[in-house]
């Protein structure tokens, strides 16, 4: 709130620049000194732009969870469960934050082995204003840390779509704490951490491309969701009783905020306000738009009417599928990925789910699991060094990225990445569910489920519109 406060790293060189004449003594040193100061001030200016962008992106990604996802999911359940569903998202904004500060960031981005990070950043030790040049050279490491935290928050929140309306709150808490620790942090390390097994850019042995979280975020959450849905079993009365979305208006708000926030998710993953951020922004928007049309047209054709629930489901499916690809593909391939994700997820959610008869309450698997898998694979097809100059050979020549660049092997790499994330999600989730079930029991009692989780778990009702 006053000029002195901002005299931290960035501002100093700028102000210093004005002081040059006063301190200049002879021409040559003066020039060198001036150059050094200019260098520093230019670096500070770069950091200001990039830091501004990344802080905004961190805010946007938090907004995806709350209110975005909370509304998207909350609108789709019955009125007696809306608060409990929103609480799943909201409480994770608090819980995962604490985990992250204590050990999560370290497990994900600390120097460790190919599978999990080390403990050097425990309690955020050493995570300050200096950039972590391994990951983002122009922003404070704290910015990188808080930005990545927002991803760790939304991922377990996505799973909650599968067990909504029937899981005990205490079990949900325990489950997500364990899951985030055992599945998310290691997976994030493998794909994005330095030396991670699948990190194509920082020394991974299986070079897998995942720009903003197709495997780390969407496959892990979507596949774990399926496991949860199968383990918990169907909601009472499913599918006989009507379980219509109770408030599609708030689901539409949620989907729109997801769309807007996703720019922070994908374009922010460039970790700078660079041209690559713009590319990812454009790909994200085009993917979402095309997927919206894909689902809508498929539904119009198969069901006779295009619903807004279909349109918003499609946009989310597209956002999911474009996520791993967003910083690697041109605009029109982005549309293609989105469009096919819209159609593919529509069939997963309608035909496939009803065929197998599992009760994935809010289609966390059908959208995130299916869309994430499709997107991860198609990233191997459409990734191009015309967009992402991240891989070069020794002579500095750009290496081909995906199939379209002539690197057919990448599809295989992507496939392995997909397999590993499926496997980790399935095994991890099953084991954790067993443990949680033994400790506190995962499923709400029949009475609690009939009364609704809002009352039985939280002692409150969402709407009191009378009187």
């Amino acid at each position, binding site marked *: 709130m006053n000029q002195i406060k901002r005299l931290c790293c960035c501002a100093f060189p700028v102000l210093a620049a004005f002081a040059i004449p006063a301190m200049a003594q002879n021409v040559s040193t003066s020039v060198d000194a001036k150059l050094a100061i200019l260098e520093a001030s230019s670096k500070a200016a770069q950091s200001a732009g990039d830091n501004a962008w990344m802080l905004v992106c961190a805010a946007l990604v938090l907004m995806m969870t709350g209110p975005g996802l909370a509304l998207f999911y909350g609108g789709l359940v019955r009125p007696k469960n809306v608060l409990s569903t929103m609480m799943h998202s909201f409480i994770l904004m608090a819980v995962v934050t604490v985990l992250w500060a204590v050990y999560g960031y370290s497990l994900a981005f600390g120097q460790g082995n190919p599978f999990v990070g080390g403990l050097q950043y425990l309690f955020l030790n050493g995570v300050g204003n200096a950039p972590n040049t391994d990951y983002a050279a122009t922003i404070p490491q704290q910015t990188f840390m808080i930005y990545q935290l927002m991803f760790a928050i939304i991922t377990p929140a996505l799973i909650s779509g599968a067990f909504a309306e029937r899981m005990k709150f205490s079990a949900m808490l325990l489950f997500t704490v364990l899951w985030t620790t055992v599945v998310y942090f290691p997976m994030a390390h493998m794909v994005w951490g330095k030396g991670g097994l699948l990190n194509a850019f920082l020394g991974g042995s299986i070079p897998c491309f995942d720009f903003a979280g197709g495997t780390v975020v969407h496959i892990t959450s979507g596949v774990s969701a399926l496991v949860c849905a199968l383990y918990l079993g169907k909601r009472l009365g499913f599918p006989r009783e009507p379980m219509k979305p109770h408030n599609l208006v708030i689901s539409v708000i949620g989907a729109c905020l997801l769309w807007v926030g996703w720019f922070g998710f994908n374009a922010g993953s460039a970790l700078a306000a660079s041209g690559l951020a713009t590319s990812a922004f454009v790909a994200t928007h085009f993917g979402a738009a095309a997927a919206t049309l894909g689902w809508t047209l498929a539904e119009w054709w198969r069901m006779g009417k295009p619903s807004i629930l279909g349109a918003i489901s499609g946009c989310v499916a597209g956002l999911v599928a474009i996520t791993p690809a967003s910083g690697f593909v041109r605009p029109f391939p982005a549309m293609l990925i989105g469009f096919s994700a819209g159609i593919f997820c529509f069939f997963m959610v309608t035909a496939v*789910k009803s065929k197998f008869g599992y009760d994935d309450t809010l289609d966390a698997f059908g959208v995130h699991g299916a869309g994430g898998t499709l997107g991860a694979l198609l990233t191997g097809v459409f990734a191009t060094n015309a967009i992402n100059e991240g891989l070069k050979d020794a002579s500095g020549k750009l290496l081909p990225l995906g199939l379209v660049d002539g690197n057919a092997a990448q599809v295989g790499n992507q496939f392995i990445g997909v397999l590993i994330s499926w496997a980790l999600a399935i095994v991890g989730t099953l084991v954790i569910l067993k443990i949680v079930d033994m400790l506190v029991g995962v499923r709400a009692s029949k009475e609690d489920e009939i009364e609704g989780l809002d009352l039985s778990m939280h002692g409150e009702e969402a709407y009191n519109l009378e009187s």
Partner: protein
Amino acid sequence: MKKIEAVIQPHKLDQVKEALKAIGVDGMTISEVRGHGRQKGHKEVYRGMEYDVDLLPKVKLELVIPDNRLDEITRTLVAAARTGKIGDGKVFVYDVADAIRIRNDDTGEAAL
């Protein structure tokens, strides 16, 4: 005294109210209900889950009236509520044992 209970199409409420007002019937109580009958409902599909919606929105009017106006009022009401299509609704008539105006203890027809 008689009670007229009419279940009508919601979009006919205004016309019925006007028609009743025109013949001097003011007192009535209205509620939102859902009806099931001959009228076919519709299908709603949410992400592939199909629901047959056979409870359709209706409006219920309750009027307590003096015996001697029964005929006139039902006729007026029915005429105003009719579209001629299935689902127009019903009128039921009941006997009323007593009526009291809360404000001032008027009873019987004086309370209406």
